[in-house]
């Protein structure tokens, strides 16, 4: 895998994927014999795992004519997918318009806008489901000018992970890997990666992470029992679901920054929290294990505003 990051490329889109796996040593101190790797999706050009799905959805649609340069890409997003659409839209010469609840963090709105993206705000009280419904209504009323990728229903979303994330994990770790951990939002990361890992000749346990309550602070994750269930979701692909509290995710994100030098977002904190729990269980049972967990993005996307900024909705 050496050399992948220093290769010559023609477009920023080609910089998506081939993210490194970093071994965690300190937050796993109670499971010293179990290997836990964080797959650093923040090394994608847009800074998050969503670069994979967004670029795949755009390239697949360009290839079969659903997306052309005279259309506007519109979708609902709580942020990272919007950043990804914005970057690749700029690179491909495609206009991007995003609908997001106004309480999405200010940093991400600013990043999307920097690429020339137009943002429409939906009611923060209605959350991401409100933004989804807003876009569906708009596109149903005036479909012609728009390409609506609909990341919750678009098979290119999990396909990006089937072809990318899952393959990369097997290429790096091969028969060693025993567990894969990812959070559920659109569910694309888990669906596509698990589908690929399940084809491997040795069993790999796939563990989905969900917030423990409908009212949570793990941005990017969905509490599926209380949400619109994504069309791409196939509950049979994950072997197990772990429910993680907001505080556990936030505390692990803090610990990763201080102890591992990884400043990650809260959903990634939840994923690593789940991975460490599994590692500790394997250690207690004196089993072997090699766990890969997704680090979806960096923590600086979630910095709270300063007092003077408090009039901004974020």
């Amino acid at each position, binding site marked *: 895998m050496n050399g992948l990051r220093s290769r010559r490329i023609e477009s920023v889109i080609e910089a998506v994927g081939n993210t490194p796996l970093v071994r965690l040593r300190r937050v796993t101190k109670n499971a010293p014999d179990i290997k836990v790797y964080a797959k650093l999706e923040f090394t994608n050009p847009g800074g998050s795992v969503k670069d994979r799905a967004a670029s795949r959805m755009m390239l697949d649609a360009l290839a079969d004519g659903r997306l052309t340069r005279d259309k506007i890409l519109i979708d609902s997003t*709580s942020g990272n997918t919007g950043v990804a659409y914005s970057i690749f839209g700029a690179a491909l010469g495609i206009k991007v318009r995003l609908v997001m609840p106004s309480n999405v963090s200010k940093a991400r709105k600013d990043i999307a806008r920097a690429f020339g993206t137009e943002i429409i705000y939906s009611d923060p009280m209605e959350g991401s489901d409100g933004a989804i419904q807003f876009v569906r209504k708009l596109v149903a009323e005036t479909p012609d000018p728009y390409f609506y990728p609909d990341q919750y229903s678009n098979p290119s979303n999990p396909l990006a992970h089937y072809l990318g994330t899952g393959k990369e994990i097997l290429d790096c770790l091969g028969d060693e890997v025993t567990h894969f951990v990812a959070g559920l939002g659109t569910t694309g990361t888990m669906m596509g990666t698990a589908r690929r890992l399940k084809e491997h000749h040795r069993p790999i346990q796939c563990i989905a992470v969900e917030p423990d309550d409908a009212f949570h602070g793990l941005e990017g994750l*969905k509490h599926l029992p209380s949400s619109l269930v994504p069309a791409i979701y196939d509950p049979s692909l994950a072997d197990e679901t772990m429910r993680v509290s907001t505080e556990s995710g936030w505390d692990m994100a803090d610990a990763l920054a201080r102890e591992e030098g990884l400043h990650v977002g*809260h959903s990634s904190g939840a994923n690593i929290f789940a991975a460490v729990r599994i590692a500790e269980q394997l250690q207690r049972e004196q089993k072997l294990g090699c766990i890969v967990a997704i680090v979806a993005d960096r923590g600086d996307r979630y910095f709270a505003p300063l007092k003077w900024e408090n009039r901004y909705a974020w």
Partner: protein
Amino acid sequence: MEVTVRIPTPLRTLTAGADEVSVLGETVGAALEALEAKHPGMRERLLDEKGVRRFINIYVGEEDVRFLEGLSTKLKAGDQLSIVPAIAGGAA
């Protein structure tokens, strides 16, 4: 002091679907206690031992109570409290 509290979607299971609830209270803290009395389960979702949970913003009108006096922030009749999670969800 009667104030209205705007309830976000994921907490409306506790209010039988109501998006607004009227409660009495002299301060934000008292209003939230009154909300808990009407709709049990609110307190544990909104507060922890240190005050408002880290991922939750409570606004009086347009002002985040973190930048006022927190749970001690005084209320006037007719004030509107909004409970806004600092997140939107749905993109992993």
